[in-house]
């Protein structure tokens, strides 16, 4: 079989070009082993696909099985199985009988009741892998996390290929959106592909597909002619929390808008273009509204921790500036800020290596613990004051953002950029007026 023909089997996978190439290559080895034997190569041992739920691991495994043309034997843990170890052994036995074949161990990390590397189930898998070592049986395993798996089970020789499948990158996300949303019946003009790519930062392929479908459902229920941005946003909100409608109490709604505007303003000021959407309505059980940051292919350098802390703290700071008192319900924000500060002070040690967090606590004195802890807290308080100062000097921007959020319920990146532009124009005009006055 030609390589081009093989690659057709993987067309169902959207994006993930490098991963597809790896799979094509495995399929090619399986279908034209003779060519490889000339170079003294044997069939590479087994493939492990690791990644969060919904990124398409099982789909990739299935495509590889189809492309190889081999008979496959799937092993999954069902709670109905009384003796799961027997099921595992039986799967391998049947696969060995009908070699060349493929065994798919789907969600292997769920094989053991609890997440333990020393469980009987993993020991059985390891024993079975060794038993079929000399047979023409290829094994594919999918797992969510390789942490907690025993090192001896996933070593080269047992699993030669280990692929970590992450959430789609910008390009892959674009392709997924193209295939599952842009091709749907009617797409309104206000839908911008780039905006959607930004919006789906950190979402898996399945989540993006669900988002596209939900948007279509909302549009249908609306009896709209086409899918509009507002339908996508509505579906997006549901994917984050549970949309319960606008906040009835007007002053509470204003506080929420102000809080979220604080996040968005800080995000836009420190890293222009990074706030993908900001939303103010009753969404989650413990707080209302959210701000979601878009894809930024930026490395974490030490200044990034400050940025993260400032953006997280900006919500509370904005409320304090406007209403005179900080709001309740920003525990998560503050925790995020504290973690970022902690990584700066005790991780990369930006303010001295003497603050490094030691692995073993037993040699650490009480005094050192106090000193390091105090350093982190002091730093975070400084960031809070800095966040207040930045917002105060951009009060106009903050107020306009709050206004518009109250009015529209949500703002996208383009709106935020527009408001910022208007403010800076107005300020420029003001200074010029002063000059002439």
């Amino acid at each position, binding site marked *: 079989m030609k390589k081009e023909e093989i690659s057709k089997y993987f067309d169902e996978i959207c994006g993930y070009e490098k991963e597809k190439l790896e799979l094509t290559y495995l399929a090619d080895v399986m279908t034209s082993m003779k060519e490889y034997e000339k170079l003294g190569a044997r069939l590479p041992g087994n493939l492990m696909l690791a990644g969060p739920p919904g990124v398409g691991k099982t789909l990739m495994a299935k495509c590889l099985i189809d492309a190889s043309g081999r008979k496959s034997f799937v092993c999954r843990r069902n709670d109905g199985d009384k003796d799961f170890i027997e099921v595992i052994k039986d799967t391998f036995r049947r696969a060995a009988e009908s070699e060349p074949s493929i065994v798919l161990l789907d969600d292997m990390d769920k094989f053991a009741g609890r997440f333990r590397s020393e469980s009987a189930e993993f020991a059985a898998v390891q024993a079975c892998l060794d038993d079929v070592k000399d047979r023409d049986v290829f094994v594919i395993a999918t797992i969510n996390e390789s942490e907690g798996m025993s090192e001896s089970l996933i070593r080269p020789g047992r699993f030669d290929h280990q692929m970590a499948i992450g959430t789609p990158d910008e390009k892959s996300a674009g392709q997924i959106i193209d295939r599952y949303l842009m091709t749907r019946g009617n797409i309104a003009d206000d839908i911008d592909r780039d905006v959607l790519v930004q919006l789906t930062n950190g979402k898996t392929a399945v989540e993006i597909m669900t988002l596209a479908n939900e948007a279509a459902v909302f549009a249908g229920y609306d009896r709209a002619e086409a899918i509009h941005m507002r339908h996508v946003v509505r579906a997006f909100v549901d994917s984050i929390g549970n949309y319960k409608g606008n906040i009835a109490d007007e002053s509470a709604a204003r506080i929420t808008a102000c809080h979220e505007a604080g996040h968005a303003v800080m995000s836009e000021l420190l890293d222009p273009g990074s706030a993908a959407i900001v939303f103010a309505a009753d969404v989650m059980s413990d707080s209302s509204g959210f701000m979601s940051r878009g894809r930024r292919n930026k490395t974490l350098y030490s200044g990034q921790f400050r940025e993260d802390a400032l953006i997280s703290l900006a919500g509370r700071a904005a409320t304090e500036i406007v209403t005179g008192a900080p709001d309740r319900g920003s525990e998560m924000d503050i925790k995020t800020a504290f973690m970022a500060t902690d990584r700066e002070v005790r991780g990369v040690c930006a303010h001295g290596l003497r603050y490094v967090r030691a692995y*073993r606590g037993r040699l650490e004195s009480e005094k*050192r613990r106090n000193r390091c802890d105090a350093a982190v807290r002091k730093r975070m308080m400084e960031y809070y004051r800095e966040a207040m100062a930045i917002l105060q000097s951009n009060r106009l921007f903050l107020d306009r953002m709050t206004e518009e959020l109250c009015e529209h319920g949500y703002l996208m990146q383009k709106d935020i950029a527009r408001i910022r532009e208007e403010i800076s124009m107005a300020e420029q005009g003001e200074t010029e007026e002063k000059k002439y006055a």
Partner: protein
Amino acid sequence: MHDEYYDYYDFLDMDEREEAFSESTKSLPGLSDEDGCDDAERQAVRREFRGIVGYGNLKNELVQICDVMRNRAVYDRLDARIPRGLFLYGSPGVGKTTMAEAVAAASGRPVIRLRRNAAGDRFIEEIKDAFRRAKEQAPSVLLMDDMDKFADGSDSYGTAAEYAVIQAAVDELEDGDVFLIATANTMGAIPESLVRQGRFDRRRRVCYPGLSDAEQILKKNLSDNVKLSDDLDMRTLAVMTSGESCAFIETMANEAAIMAGFEGSEEITMTHFINAWRRCRGDLISRELSPEEKLRTAYYQAGKAVITALMAPQALTFTYAGLHCGADDAAYFGSMQLNGGDDKLRFSVMSALAGRAAEELHYGDFDDQCTQDIREAYETILDMISGGNGDYLEVVQAGPRDVSSEMTCERISDHADAEIEEYYRETLQLLRENADFLDRVAEAMMENEYLFAEDILKIQKETGCAA
């Protein structure tokens, strides 16, 4: 190419490198290949061990055990009984099972294998059954593979029923002629009483292959009739796999052949091998670095390479800047282990901090790839101080935990904090003095991604930065 090179730089003592890394190839007196007793019998045993490449010393010991089993007459004369039990332990993939199987085959006895493929009472029955069969077929060999996986983690180790049953069964064997072989990743999981001498007389650790072992494994895994390109250098490839298991090396050799096949190439080249190496480390599909990130990583790795070249050139092997290791936890900086010595601590702390220092010099800030380094450096310093080394005899830590007072801990913490800041200042200073060298290495790494020891030392010579 390497040998010429080492002659050129005479400070690179080849023997030293070899010794530091490859203890397993040295032979004990009386156990070497040339032990003067190479009769047909011995050769038959050796044939069974052909599959094991390298590991000369350990292999000879295994041959000896087989000899004791096969030539009873010789040993009976000396009243030597067969050693009780062989326990092989070591990291995954170093070839424990292969060795155990070879001993079993060479012993000429029937083999009963026991692996855990059941749980609870059923597995206990299987254990008992295996011992029963071994006894019936005596003289025989009972091979217990991955013994540290025999019990669930739920039982606290040492009290698991599985091990109690094995121990009882081993004791019942006392006079039956059953040779026990067990393999495990660690000894820690297995009760001390089970693996003590008398139950397992010989406990041997199987290490990662040394340099020349790695070279032999590579050669063996490349079929003879395959064309290898001229640029292929086995020594360099062996260096790349330092600290990796035999299974890794085998897999890498196979992947290189497959990569060549996929490309339709007639011969296997260095590029195939480097890509195979990356594939085995799982980073062929990792996120592509932006040029900015790449330069940052290059500086980070260059810092480590420069400090190593200046402080311990014999430890330089190979550096690679294709991955951002803060995010993906895998940029690679190989350096061979050093023999002890006064400068060892200094070097290990400074080379750990060198990545951050290089970033600070060039950028004024640093990203999170240095987090792990700083922790490791701090731990090394803590170990040094609490071990009572140098000026720190007074604060030595010994005996059970919690034994030292708050005041001692305070002094240790204060010393350690001061030490790490001082080492960092020194590292910065050393890099600042050799800024030209650092820039040139980073530059070269941007071009090539890979630099080998000779490339780095060549740059050092050109920039005139002396050790």
